[in-house]
């Protein structure tokens, strides 16, 4: 594994040219976030992540977090010090409301910083990520007293947060949650039950851990309508803000996982000694509704993990390919082994990685800026349009980027050849770490269902078809840009046409026979992700070709390569979209013709 270099140039390009960070700073809520300030923050946090957090990645993977007999979890060497410095530098607070000690910066900026933290060390980044989810929940639904007690220390990162959803019988289906909450008579509740897969449920990075726990109150209706959300702190907090008694909860086990070894995935037991003290968030039985309000940002963050892992895998693969000498390049003299980057097949792998990375970054940052615009744009129509776009893009950000991110990590390992399969290179770690994002925060299958069952039908299909129309309109600009971008036009038009056909089929078929639409959900999500990525890269290429007229030196090289990468994506990767169409519109029939329900082995 080599050092992580924050991809500042591409991040800056996307911020300036694709998502218009300058326009964002014109909104009243973000006047302080002018592009220079925002980029200054990104640059400095990137340096911090690369130099302080980056070196933890490998050691964290090898050592992992460990649980001792007393329920105490120890993170790998270096984690507590790096986390202390992370809190001291104030990076955790950047996007949160100033009234709780936050910086009030756009979510877009937080996402750029999060990309770099996750690339530096994904296992480390999960602790702030979960805290961020808990903060979001309390900002939106906590009472003023709860906010005053918990938020400031969580925003600063001095205390961390967790989300306690899953139980052994309640995974994707949270309606099956059994953890109980009973009123204690003094306004607080007593929580009993067991939760699994609790990321950073116990650790040594912070003084207190604020658990958000889903549970059922007495006489709650069955299913998701009977879920309530509770704050259950590891240590109770005294009136004066100091830490009080240890709450009745403990970590009983830490999972042995495929990847993210440094991130303790805990089995948490609540109420072994009678009941953990909990505080109800909002109203009873509204827990699932509250969860949905923070789901978009959480899913975007997980999608980002696909990008972050891919970027790190690409950096390693590129450097390896530039150094490793092997074989004979076409036309080169015998006996002189060229670096493997000179072989066309290795080049294909590297360029594929690079192109997917740039497409993912474009999709994710577009999603992020839309969250900000949906909140703060002065025009209500634009707010609504952006809200719709966030709804549509979120499952794509989550599922497409984590699937592609894993694919890219796999290509990165392939570039290394046999040595990539050996742990010391680090290529294998990206593959292992990158395997969880497609699973958690709603599996990618669930994302595909969300896309076809909730998002595509929005406004009778209007949201997705409006987006496809916008893509068609780009063709005129591409045509005007001259022969350089001409190759993109047909490729993009084919992709959009496949997306349109697939969408029309889903819209009509989904109503008549839902199982047919569900059968095509995953290929549809991939198809739409590929096409949206192609559209955004084509827009990037347009911007780059405009800028290229007055650029020189290394800027010109960057812009030139931006265009060439976009051409490669649209002309060589995007055509997969049309290939996915038959799988989208095949219906459920073929999946049930083979009798897997009773199929015998052997």
């Amino acid at each position: 594994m080599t050092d992580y270099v924050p991809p500042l140039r591409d991040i800056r390009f996307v911020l300036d040219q694709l998502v218009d960070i300058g326009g964002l700073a014109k909104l009243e809520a973000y006047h302080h976030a002018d592009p220079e300030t925002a980029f200054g923050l990104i640059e400095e946090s990137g340096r911090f992540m690369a130099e302080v957090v980056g070196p933890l990645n490998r050691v964290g993977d090898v050592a992992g977090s460990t649980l001792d007999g007393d329920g105490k979890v120890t993170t790998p060497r270096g984690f507590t010090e790096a986390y202390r410095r992370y809190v001291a530098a104030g990076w955790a607070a950047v996007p949160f409301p100033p009234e709780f000690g936050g910086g009030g910066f756009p979510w877009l900026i937080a996402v750029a910083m999060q990309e770099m933290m996750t690339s530096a060390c994904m296992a480390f980044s999960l602790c702030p990520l979960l805290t961020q989810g808990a903060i979001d929940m309390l900002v939106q639904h906590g009472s003023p007293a709860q906010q005053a007690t918990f938020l400031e220390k969580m925003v600063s990162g001095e205390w961390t947060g967790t989300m306690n959803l899953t139980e052994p019988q309640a995974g994707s289906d949270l309606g099956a949650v059994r953890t109980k909450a009973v009123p204690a008579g003094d306004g607080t509740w007593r929580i009993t039950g067991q939760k699994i897969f609790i990321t950073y449920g116990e650790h040594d990075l912070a003084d207190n851990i604020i658990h958000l726990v889903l549970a059922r109150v007495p006489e709650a209706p069955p299913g998701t309508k009977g879920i309530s959300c509770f704050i259950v702190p590891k240590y109770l907090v005294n009136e004066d803000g100091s830490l009080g008694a240890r709450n009745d909860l403990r970590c009983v086990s830490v999972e042995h996982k495929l990847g993210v070894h440094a991130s303790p995935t805990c089995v948490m037991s609540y109420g072994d000694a009678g009941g953990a003290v909990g505080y109800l968030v909002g109203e009873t039985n509204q827990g699932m509704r509250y969860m949905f309000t923070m789901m978009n940002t959480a899913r975007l963050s997980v999608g980002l993990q696909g990008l972050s892992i891919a970027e790190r895998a690409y950096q390693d693969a590129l450097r390896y390919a530039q150094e490793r000498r092997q074989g004979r390049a076409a036309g080169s003299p015998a006996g002189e082994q060229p670096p493997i980057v000179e072989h066309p097949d290795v080049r294909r792998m590297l360029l594929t990685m690079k192109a997917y990375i740039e497409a993912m970054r474009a999709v994710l940052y577009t999603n992020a800026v839309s969250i900000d615009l949906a909140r703060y744009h002065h025009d209500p129509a634009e707010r609504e349009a952006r809200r719709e776009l966030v709804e549509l893009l979120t499952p794509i950000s989550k599922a497409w980027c984590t699937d592609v991110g894993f694919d890219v990590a796999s290509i990165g390992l392939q570039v290394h050849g046999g040595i990539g399969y050996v742990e010391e290179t680090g290529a294998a770690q990206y593959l292992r770490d990158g395997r969880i994002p497609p699973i958690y925060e709603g599996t990618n299958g669930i994302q595909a269902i969300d896309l076809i069952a909730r998002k595509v039908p929005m406004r009778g299909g209007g949201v997705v078809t409006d987006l496809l129309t916008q893509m068609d309109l780009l063709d005129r600009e591409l045509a005007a840009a001259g022969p350089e971008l001409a190759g993109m036009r047909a490729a993009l038009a084919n992709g959009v046409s496949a997306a349109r056909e697939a969408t029309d089929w889903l819209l009509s078929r989904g109503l008549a026979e839902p199982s047919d639409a569900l059968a095509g959900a995953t290929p549809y999500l991939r198809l739409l992700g590929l096409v949206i990525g192609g559209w955004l890269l084509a827009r990037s290429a347009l911007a780059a070709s405009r800028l290229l007229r007055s650029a020189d030196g290394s800027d010109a090289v960057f812009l030139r390569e931006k265009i060439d990468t976009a051409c490669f994506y649209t002309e060589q990767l995007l055509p997969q979209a049309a290939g996915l169409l038959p799988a989208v519109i095949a219906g459920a029939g073929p999946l049930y013709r083979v009798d897997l329900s009773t199929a015998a082995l052997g």
Partner: protein
Amino acid sequence: MNIVVCVKQVPDTALERKLKPGDATLDRAAVDGLINELDEYAIEEGLRIAEAQRDAGADAEVTILTMGPEKAAESIRKALSMGADKAVHLVDDGLAGSDALSTSYALAKVLSGAGFDLVICGSESTDARMGVMAAMLAERLGVPQLSLASKVDTDGSVIRVRRATDEGYDEAEASLPAVISVVEKINEPRYPSFKGIMAAKKKPVATLSLADAGIEPDAVGLLSAATEVVDFAERPPRQAGTIVKDEGDGGVKIAEFLAGQKFI
């Protein structure tokens, strides 16, 4: 205590640096500029001394002093985001091409005008690599110089430094005001924090022209430089390495190679 840290913006050492063919000065526009890495230790030490002074109940202030083109303002802002209180930026087209002698003249003019208790320099700049600025400044200002410090203590009136030598270290002390230079070993420079970056936007930066600083135009700049780059050539491309095949005599061959290059 009035602490001034001299900070130079230099081209990123990770990038290819070039001299301009016309006047053989560094092409600063062609590459990204950043704080001379060795100056970061000087900034950190200045901040630590100021913090210690304040903890002891004394007033202390850290000022960044930079001479350089407008672009150097980025580096000043960064030094302020690390925690320095204010900055002075000496910027004037007439300064372009100044050598070490005239640079020290200009900086000394600003320093003696503004006043100081302690001036801190990095050990050298990563572009010019002269390592003489602290000595020249001390000479021009008529104050003691303690160079290449790896540890600094001060009570506000006397300053003591430790300086590594081949055998161990020297301890030296001087009364303030004084000029010191520090080495990389002395500390670990802090990262600018989120709050520091935001606060830096509001910190005062005084911009001085030659006239503002009372510097005679003919005392600085390329034409009045006492040194001149007469000629330069691009670094030749790296040669392919020599491959020695070990046929049981590898050790001998390596020794011969090293002796041939006069390494042993």
